[in-house]
């Protein structure tokens, strides 16, 4: 038990180290951007008609703490970031945590649902495909999963919108109906959300499914040919019991491990799909921050949060694997 706690602690420290490296990368990128927050803010003031001078910019820099050396500012940023505090947005002048808040959790929820959907489809279908000798079935599945990889999600979103506008005459956009947009959370609002959210979940899950399907199928067909499976079937185990209790359990490890990367893949598609479907979530906010206003504070915060969720998921899958897989558990406990 003690060694298990030690294992969890090592993993946690490693996750933390990854996050710190990532934050350094993200923060350096924010620094590389020409111009800083002070200049942007005063440039904005200038357009509003008030005159500004170099002294004003310097004063604003001092106020925001931008005159301190890089390392100090990074330490401050990272300590705040771990407390969920990202300072004010450069352009919008609102607290980023307030601005993102619900939107971030909403996007994360959608992405995780897409991930669940992907594996809910991929695991059974992949196992069946690996177990069957039917060439047509296998080729069809291969083609479908390649097609899923080749067809970028934003194209799929566009095509679904094309179909829905041409045949059904309605555009499937947004996350909430008008009357619920600013309402407090309630059961009715949740139902309304689910009515809208199935489309982004489906679209985001699309290529993740294709990818997961390939992983599951490859792992399963590797395992199915092994001797322990033959031995089990010689003992009279057959059908679903054979598949689930023998090769599937072995293939489980790599699949659980790949969850983090699949979430990464889904995050990649999120901003663009959000843009097409006009959703008001973190992805759309990211595009806005980047494309329209060069808001490096906001962009940095979103990228950091996305990475943090992936790192957290990786941490949990590591622990989960240790709980599920006796081999992994043994290697830790020794």
């Amino acid at each position: 038990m003690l060694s298990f706690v030690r294992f969890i602690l090592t993993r946690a420290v490693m996750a933390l180290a990854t996050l710190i490296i990532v934050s350094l990368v993200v923060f350096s990128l924010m620094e590389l951007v020409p111009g800083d927050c002070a200049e942007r803010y005063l440039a904005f003031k200038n357009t509003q008609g008030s005159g500004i001078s170099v002294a004003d910019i310097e004063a604003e820099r001092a106020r925001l703490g931008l005159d301190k050396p890089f390392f100090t500012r990074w330490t401050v940023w990272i300590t705040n970031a771990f407390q969920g505090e990202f300072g004010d947005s450069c352009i919008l002048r609102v607290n980023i945590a307030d601005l993102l808040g619900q939107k971030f959790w909403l996007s994360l929820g959608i992405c995780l649902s897409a991930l669940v959907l992907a594996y809910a489809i991929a695991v059974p279908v992949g196992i069946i495909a690996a177990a069957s000798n039917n060439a047509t079935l296998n080729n069809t599945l291969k083609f479908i999963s390649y097609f899923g990889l080749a067809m970028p999600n934003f194209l799929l979103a566009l095509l679904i919108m094309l179909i829905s506008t041409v045949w059904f005459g309605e555009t499937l956009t947004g996350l909430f109906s008008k009357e619920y947009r600013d309402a407090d959370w309630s059961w009715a609002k949740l139902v309304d959300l689910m009515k809208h959210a199935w489309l982004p979940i489906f679209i985001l899950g699309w290529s993740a499914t294709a990818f997961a399907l390939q992983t599951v199928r490859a792992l399963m067909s590797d395992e199915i040919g092994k001797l322990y499976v033959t031995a089990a079937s010689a003992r009279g185990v057959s059908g679903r019991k054979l598949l689930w209790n023998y090769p599937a359990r072995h293939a489980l490890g790599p699949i659980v491990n790949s969850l983090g990367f699949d979430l990464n893949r889904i995050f990649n598609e999120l901003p663009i799909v959000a843009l097409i479907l006009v959703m008001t979530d973190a992805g759309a906010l990211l595009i806005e921050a980047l494309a329209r206003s060069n808001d490096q504070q906001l962009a940095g915060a979103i990228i950091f949060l996305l990475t943090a969720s992936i790192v957290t998921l990786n941490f949990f899958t590591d622990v989960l694997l240790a709980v599920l897989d006796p081999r992994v558990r043994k290697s830790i406990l020794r």
Partner: protein
Amino acid sequence: MTSEAQTNGPISTEDQKAKEAYFTASQRQLIWARFKKQRTAMIAAVVLIVLVVSGIFAPFLSPYDPTIAGRDKDYTNGAPQIPQFCDTNGCSMRPFIHAVERERSLATNFRWVTKVNEDKRLYVQWFVKGDKYELFGFVPGTVHLFGVEGGKIHLFGTDEDGQDIFSRTLHAVWTSLQVGSIGVFIAFVLALIIGGVAGYYGGWIDSVIQMVTDAVRTVPAIPLFMAIAAFMPPELSAEARFFYISMILGLIGWPTLARRVRTHLLTERNQEYVLAAQLCGASPGHTIRRHLLPSFTSYIIVDLVISFPYMVLSETALSFIGLGLKDPVSSLGVMLQKATSADVMLNYQWYFIPVVFFIVLVMAFVFVGDGLRDAADPYSESHK
């Protein structure tokens, strides 16, 4: 050996030859032989070659200039014109299209309306003179593969500015191939250096590099990509933008490749031939370049082919949201920008024709990469 073959008759002579060919074949010949056996991969390879060639010769194959210079101002948002052999007035050996006319009168509510004139035929001509272009960037020319006399032909229709979608699609294929190649090349060089150093030296250098690589890998690429691309100065020219985008793609794409290089080097560096080279006094750089790299060139090529479509897709996505390439350059993302409005979706669906080309391009790459991977694996035959 020859006497043995003679006593066993002609069949085994051939057997012998086949065996001899197999054992003396170079690595490349073996891969090719295995690759040829895979039908899907071969089909994909042919498709890919056709697409690459049509991309290279895009200026010649496309009837008009893809930029605003080649626009047809009398046929904006025009439907695709399919060449036909027969109409109500009879048939002809030479394919033709019907002429379009624009009119504005009381009958059309004083708006410009394009109308197809069923009685006027425009015959398709081969090798017609048209817009000037430069093949490969330096061979000037004016001859295009096909065109019509006394009008213009738009196989895939036109967009809102009257630009020919067929011409733009061909040029866009070429743009994608270019962006992908540059991106893959940069990612490849970075991966070789970083993965090479990590794998060759091992130890704590490897641990540190691995940690950084893993950290970079966890950052979602496209949001990061957008963040970097958004801060390109907006006054950049189209060409400069093009190179920046390719560079960013490469800068973000290296970690996966670097990891593969490192893993391979770690297993190979303890082999005897490496020790022999080191004992002969070869420098680390020389050993990596001359002894270790050739041992897994085929794997690297496969990885490059596989990572190619992701570069193309990223570029398309980025251009689509307006952070990538911009208008004078033809690219799928740029072309699709115009396709999101409800007006286009309801009335001008031919804006989506280029999408088919891109799915085919990406799938061809994926299938060829898959086939190459199986072909390059020397153990793939023993599995089957």
